[in-house]
């Protein structure tokens, strides 16, 4: 009986807090994405109009995000049946969007960000080889115009 409680408690806690955290995070991401709508971030290497550029500099943004226990268990089950692991998809999606938002916050006053690169690395690998937490690092060149 005690064993079952020990197994179920982290799953339940993970489910409750994880889903609240994810909901809040998505809400804040959407709000901030609206705010930065006027700052285009593109993966082209050359600025579209090179005439009135005053300066350019490297801007970066990074985030380390962890999956909750409930989702980890869910993903473990998915490993048996195969198919899309939706719980990890949302994790990576959230992390990427957050990293790009931080990049944009770093580029205050810029007219655009070019050559956006995204790098993913999983840190803190657990023993079973599943991802514990991932880091997304975004970098690009901010272009300032007159």
């Amino acid at each position, binding site marked *: 009986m005690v064993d079952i409680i020990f197994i179920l408690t*982290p799953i339940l*806690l*993970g489910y409750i*807090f*994880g889903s609240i*955290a*994810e909901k809040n*995070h998505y809400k804040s991401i959407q709000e901030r994405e609206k705010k930065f709508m006027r700052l285009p971030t593109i993966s082209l*290497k*050359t*600025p579209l109009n*090179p005439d009135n*550029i*005053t*300066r*350019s*500099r*490297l801007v*970066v943004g*990074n*985030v*380390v*995000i*962890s*999956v*909750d*226990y409930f*989702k*980890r268990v869910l993903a473990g089950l998915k490993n048996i049946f195969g198919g899309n692991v939706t719980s990890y998809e949302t994790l990576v999606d959230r992390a990427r969007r*957050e990293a790009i938002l931080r990049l944009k916050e770093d580029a205050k006053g810029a007219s655009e960000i*070019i*050559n956006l*690169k995204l*790098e993913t*690395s999983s*840190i*803190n*690998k657990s023993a079973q080889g599943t991802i*514990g*937490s991932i*880091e997304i*690092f975004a*970098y*690009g*060149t901010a*272009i300032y115009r007159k």
Partner: protein
Amino acid sequence: MIITNIESIPNRKIVDHFGVVSGSTVRAKHVGRDLMAGLKNVFGGELKGYTELLSESREEAMDRMTAQAKSLGANAIVNVRFSTSSVAAGAAELYVYGTAVKIV
């Protein structure tokens, strides 16, 4: 020192190349942060300690790259790339490299 990750610096002319410059750091996290990360693994969410740690380490690596470029007499670095690799459990290497150039 102007740093970009494109091949040129807009509206400036590259007059001299100094070759590749690079900087790297290997960082490990301390126990307190590890403990918090363990808790976060249950609840999910952002690991702020790690985010800070990694961005600080990247800055350190970039500082080393910039110092190297300065000692060569460059005033800009173009085509900067980052790479991350975990060398051991709990330690990560952050590597940054680019081409040192002189611009006018």
